[in-house]
């Protein structure tokens, strides 16, 4: 690499390639960009280690199944844990049918018309709205306007708010999955006299299901970790009792969930509460890890079999 530089120097009058200097800048740039990449990883490692050191000592079965308490050594996360699970069920039950249905509608039935374009722009706009704004929508619409159905600032309102929040993600995932199904399958179905819906239901959708599932699980794991909107809807109340899956339980105008519980404990001044907040974070992160691992498993499993 040195010799062409020398010959270039002797041949051309004005042109100075200055390769040595340029390669030095190259080297520096490469090192800086590697350091930038590693900085993110280092921060992640420090965060995880810090939380593990703080949280592991308090982690026990009692911690999982006890209600929260004014005394940090007796406090547990059972109501918060169940609250998160029920939120997950409500969110999934509402957002999956609506999101997948919308995705099918836009991708298979209404490809190019004006309404579809309007809905499409609208969805990309919704995806950029901060989650706390959804919280305000939930507070006003579900907490007040439809309070006679939801019971006010209840777990049902919280779940519905989260469902609206992740709807755009599920719609986009569904459309991407449907896009990857070859058109020949649709043509074959219609050539046999099936309607569009029959073709989609029996042939296109089954092929798209893995992609839809992956996107949906990732969206739901985002919903589980969301804190701001459910604090706005649910008022971050102190809830010592476990929620129940009955209509009255869902309408109970106070609820808690893991992120709310963590927020409560972190914002207290006592260090003992900070330690159990770290333990609760570990539980939350394990739930997220399991969900993400499921999504990756589904993706890999079905990708290789096709």
């Amino acid at each position, binding site marked *: 690499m040195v010799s062409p530089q020398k010959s270039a120097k002797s041949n051309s009058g004005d042109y100075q390639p200055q390769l040595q200097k340029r390669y030095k800048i190259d080297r520096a740039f490469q090192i800086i*960009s590697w350091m930038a990449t590693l900085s993110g990883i280092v921060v992640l490692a420090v965060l995880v280690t810090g939380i593990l050191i703080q949280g592991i000592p308090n982690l026990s079965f009692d911690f999982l199944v006890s209600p929260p308490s004014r005394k940090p050594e007796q406090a547990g996360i059972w109501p918060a844990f169940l609250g998160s699970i029920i939120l997950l069920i409500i969110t999934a039950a509402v957002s999956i049918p609506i999101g997948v249905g919308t995705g099918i509608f836009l991708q298979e*039935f209404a490809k190019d018309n004006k309404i579809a374009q309007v809905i499409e722009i609208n969805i990309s706009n919704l995806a950029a709205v901060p*989650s706390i704004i959804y919280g*305000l929508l939930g507070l*006003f619409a579900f907490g007040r306007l439809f309070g006679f159905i939801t019971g006010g600032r209840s777990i049902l309102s919280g779940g519905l708010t989260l469902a609206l929040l992740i709807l755009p993600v599920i719609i986009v995932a569904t459309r991407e999955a449907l896009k990857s199904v070859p058109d020949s399958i649709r043509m074959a179905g219609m050539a046999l006299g099936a309607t569009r819906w029959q073709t989609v239901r029996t042939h296109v959708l089954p092929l798209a299901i893995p992609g839809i599932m992956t996107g949906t699980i990732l969206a739901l794991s985002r919903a589980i970790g969301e804190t701001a909107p459910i604090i706005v809807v649910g008022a971050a109340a102190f809830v010592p009792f476990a929620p129940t899956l009955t209509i009255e339980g869902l309408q109970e105008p106070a609820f808690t969930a893991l*992120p709310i519980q963590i927020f409560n404990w*972190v914002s207290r001044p006592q260090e003992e509460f900070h330690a159990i907040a770290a333990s609760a974070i570990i539980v939350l992160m394990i739930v997220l890890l399991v969900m993400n691992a499921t999504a990756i498993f589904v993706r890999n499993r079905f990708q290789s079999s096709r």
Partner: protein
Amino acid sequence: MTQSVFPDAGGSQSDLWKPNRAASKMSQKAVVILFGAFAMVSVLTTFGIVFTLLFETIEFFLEVSPIEFFTATRWTPLFANPEFGIIVLLCGTFLTSAIGLLIAIPLGLLSAVCLSEYAPRRARAFLKPALEVLAGVPTVVFGYFALLLVTPVLRSFIPDMQVFNALSAGFVLGFAILPTIASLSEDAIFAVPSSLRQGCYALGATKRETITGVVLPAALSGIVSSVILGVSRAVGETMIVTLAAGQSPTLTLDPRVSIQTMTAFIVQVTKGDAPYGSIAFKTLFAVGMTLFVITLVLNLISYWFVRKYQEKYE
């Protein structure tokens, strides 16, 4: 012969194939109507957000003059003698976002360059998921990290720093949005055709010169939209700034003191009990409206930029 395949040709074959076209068409129609109604939910969500914010904001401005809202320099809506200077909260949001973006934009772009141009395939297969994990960390966990791990370290370097401060919140906020910028920019950089790179090498440029002179400009529209998305995420971020930057609205650009952002104010009010119809409740939506307008404008700029500068390669 041709007659016999039709079902009404009679004989035993007729009950083998009964095309119920009416039913097929009905199910098709029903599904289109049902899914079309589902699609309307997302449109209704937008209307719901705009209507909600507008309705309560108008109520708010019936009680507080817009002039005061935009010019007052104190923010004390929950006091007995309230003042409503949104500039104080805007300043807090600006401060934490600016610190966060000072970290996230350079580091995010350099990470994107590294992942796409420098990292070998095997390293990339490990680094990209790691960044995705960082992106998946709930923001309340980042808030814990900022308040209880980063702040003590920073305070040992800067002794006169308060427990709640914009610097620590902004620092962690930067790493929370870094993966967004890195991942979207990386997609844009990766999509630049290699013929452009090879053309540049053929002219005698080094790798770094090719990246900064050809690849990054070619990916500019994608990079800018990733940065704008990063900005709007920084502005709308809630839990990190609520936990680490504090709850004391102060008109300052000093990163060492406690401030309050728009999002932190919303949490502060909803966490307590703001009864429907009270001025505190209406203030909530006026602040939300301000936040919504900012992110909407950012989104429109991004949309416009991409349409104007997007390069199309075959």
